[in-house]
């Protein structure tokens, strides 16, 4: 026992920690840099880069670290690269860690909900902006436990540097054991030192997780994570804000009653917008995924201030059409013009890069609302609206926050500005998503089945918000929906899609109450049961 204490406090062993930590730090830092490069190569659009990264991974993940250490130490000098022992060990460890770290990074990035990426693109974010503001912050949070693991494993792997004469703990322990024959006291002592080091890593990991925890309420709570009974109550804590909420409808007193607009007013409005300028013009749009044709020559013109409802069975091409109008998807042939500007090609007719397409989206001004809301889940409601304004449109924080406040108030959610999306109901999330889409003042708002993912009792609060945008604000909108009654109330015109083309379109009430095309009639009669259009007033 006294020998054990003697070796535990022996400066010779304690100083060995420095070498252990130095090799580990070099390995992790180098591995992180190399891992970032590898992950970027694997995720890149260019197949050659991905293949190179794959090849590297196969080699360095598939050979033992001890061989890589000896290689870095003894073989590299043959080509004139003579690193110090620590340098060689750090290099080998970095080269070995890189594929593992790259896989962690890749999993983290791929783990971020694709809908959020789509939403970011729709808001005009460039790929690098998306990575920095949306993907990385979420991916990093999910990667911390894995990174903690990797750190502990690198720390232990650093002991292999003993074979290339790095004076780290293991080497010092074996040398000491050889000269003193106190085998067990020495190895228990160095084992305990390793244990202390790895425990430190775990503590740091917990602190970082805690610091990045989006649900953390108060700074005082920081230490409570170490108390086991505090953790149990996280679920309760999450449930609280939801429970405190008044039912959504009570928040929207002014919205509960649909604004009565007479049929004749509606018809007048429809006639009026027909004289307006063209906002969106789609001609001969074709697109197919492999053998399956999704859009088969769509022509659609939407004028400023007009509300057009896209109807049709699932798979008829409604969503694809909307995504093409925002250039979230490419098309095979045909043309899309928004505000007179032709999308998707530079002035010299070449295809645009993803970055150029993002800038095009931001400047053309097409807002988009998704069926699954696609809010940025690491940002509060306010930041979901204000963030893109700052990042894409260069507003100051003050201006962006003011704009976000106004819009959240407009959708009846100013009291929930600081809530995270996961603490909002589906209807509230969709209202935030609408506020976010409206924030840059788009010239056209595209809504892709905005109520389809909602519980029935939440549908109305969202429809009310959309109705007001149409009626009060005169916003130009294209809505794909299954809500026939809503389409009848709000839309100037409906277009019925089937098999990738528009088979019938015209004034909303006329088409809905008296469809000419048999497919339209069939579809309407199926929806009829609970969503019949109201009869002419």
């Amino acid at each position, binding site marked *: 026992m006294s020998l054990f204490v003697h070796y535990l406090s022996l400066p*010779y062993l304690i100083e060995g920690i420095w070498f252990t930590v130095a090799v580990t730090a070099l390995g992790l830092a180098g591995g992180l840099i190399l891992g970032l490069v590898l992950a970027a190569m694997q995720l890149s659009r260019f197949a050659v880069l991905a293949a190179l990264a794959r090849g590297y991974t196969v080699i360095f993940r598939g050979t033992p670290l001890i061989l890589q250490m000896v290689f870095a130490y*003894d073989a590299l000098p*043959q080509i004139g690269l003579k690193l110090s022992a620590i340098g060689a060990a750090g290099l080998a460890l970095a080269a070995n860690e890189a594929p593992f770290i790259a896989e962690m990074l890749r999993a983290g990035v791929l783990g971020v909900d694709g809908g959020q990426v789509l939403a970011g693109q729709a808001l005009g974010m460039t790929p690098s902006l998306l990575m920095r503001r949306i993907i990385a912050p979420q991916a990093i949070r999910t990667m911390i436990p894995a990174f903690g693991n990797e750190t502990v494993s690198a720390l232990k792997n650093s002991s292999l540097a003993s*074979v290339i004469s790095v004076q780290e703990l293991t080497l010092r322990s*074996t*040398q000491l054991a*050889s000269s003193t*024959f106190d085998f067990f006291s020495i190895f228990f002592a160095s084992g305990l030192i390793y244990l202390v080091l790895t425990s430190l890593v775990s503590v740091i990991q917990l602190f970082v997780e805690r610091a990045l925890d989006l649900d953390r309420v108060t700074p005082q709570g920081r230490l409570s994570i170490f108390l086991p009974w505090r953790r149990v109550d996280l679920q309760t804590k999450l449930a609280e804000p939801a429970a405190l909420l008044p039912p959504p409808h009570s928040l929207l007193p002014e919205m509960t009653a649909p604004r009565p607009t007479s049929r004749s007013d509606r018809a007048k409005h429809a006639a009026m917008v027909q004289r307006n300028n063209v906002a969106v013009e789609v001609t001969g749009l074709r697109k197919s995924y492999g053998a399956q044709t999704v859009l088969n020559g769509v022509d659609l013109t939407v004028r400023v201030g007009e509300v057009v409802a896209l109807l049709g069975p699932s798979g008829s091409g409604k969503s694809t059409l909307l995504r093409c109008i925002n250039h979230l998807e490419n098309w095979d042939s045909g043309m899309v013009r928004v505000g007179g500007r032709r999308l998707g090609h530079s002035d010299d007719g070449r295809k645009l890069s993803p970055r150029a397409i993002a800038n095009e989206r931001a400047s053309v001004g097409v807002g988009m609302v998704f069926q699954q809301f696609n809010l940025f889940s690491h940002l509060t409601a306010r930041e979901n609206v204000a963030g893109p304004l700052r990042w894409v449109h260069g507003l100051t924080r003050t201006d962006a926050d003011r704009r976000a406040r106004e819009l959240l108030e407009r959708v009846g959610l100013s009291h929930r500005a600081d809530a995270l999306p996961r603490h909002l109901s589906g209807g509230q999330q969709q209202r935030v998503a609408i506020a976010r889409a409206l924030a840059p003042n788009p010239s056209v708002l595209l809504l892709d089945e905005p109520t389809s993912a909602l519980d029935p009792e939440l549908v109305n609060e969202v429809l009310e918000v959309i109705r007001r945008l149409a009626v009060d604000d005169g916003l130009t909108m294209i809505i794909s929906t299954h809500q026939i009654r809503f389409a009848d109330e709000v839309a100037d015109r409906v277009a019925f899609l089937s098999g990738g083309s528009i088979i019938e379109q015209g004034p909303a009430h006329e088409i809905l109450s008296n469809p000419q095309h048999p497919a339209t009639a069939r579809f309407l009669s199926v929806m009829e049961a609970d969503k019949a259009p109201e009869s002419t007033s």
Partner: protein
Amino acid sequence: MHRQSSTEARARHSAVISGLRSAALATFLLATIWAPTSASAAAPAGCAALQTKYPQFKGKQLVNAINPHTPGYEAIDPKDPNKYVGFDIDLGEAIGECLGFTLTYKPVTFAALLTTLASGQADIVISDIYATEERAKAADFITYSKVFDGVLVAKGNPKKITGINISMCGAAAAENTGYVEVPLVQALAPECKKEGKPEPTLQLYDNNANCIQAILAGRADTYVNDVNTVDQAVKANPDKLEKAIAVTIPYSVGIAVPKDKPDFRDAVMAALIEVQKAGTHKALLAKWELDPNNFKEPDILSVK
């Protein structure tokens, strides 16, 4: 492997006597020789001439790769673990002093000694390594010591092992990777077969301490290594280990230098001759309680 050293090819009780004798001798020699050596006045004339002949090594700091797991030859100093001590360390420094260079140490596994030298990570290897034809393909050797091995067994020698012979059939031998004893034990297989006995098995470790632990833990029956190392192990665990016998091994211990530096090889050889002439070599054997019979005039082993 290695080392081997020294000493005594005799049985254990005679080792004690020789130890006593060595101690007396050491006291005497230390008084007469060690003092002048450390005053760097040893063999002044010869060394001064060498420094004139080989000025390129003067004032240099060279790297000596060692496998510091052999107390008596090279191991860290238990009293100050930042230092390496032992016969080889002192001999290397005496040679360095003669040629005017100093040494730093790079601890590597035994099997990595020559690789480290060949890759240029070290300039010289003085680590109780046996000069064999096979190894001489990787480095040139200047031999300086005869080899005597001891056979380490558990107390009472339960397997009745009497050397590297058919008494080892069926036994488990612990050895260090890369040591010359490994092929010697392997060569027993056909003999054992002829006798109708099982072959000996080999357990390969990467340092002395692990080999000794293998016997203490009952995993191995024997460990054949430099007799001095074996004696040290017995001294540390007198209740559990004993030396069955000492045997002669047909090798010499050598200093390894890179094959592409004949100047350096010749300078080291010349310096070693001066060190021996001055009596330093024998004084160091006494200082580290090694058998004076180990002493050997240097030769060069170099194969193309």
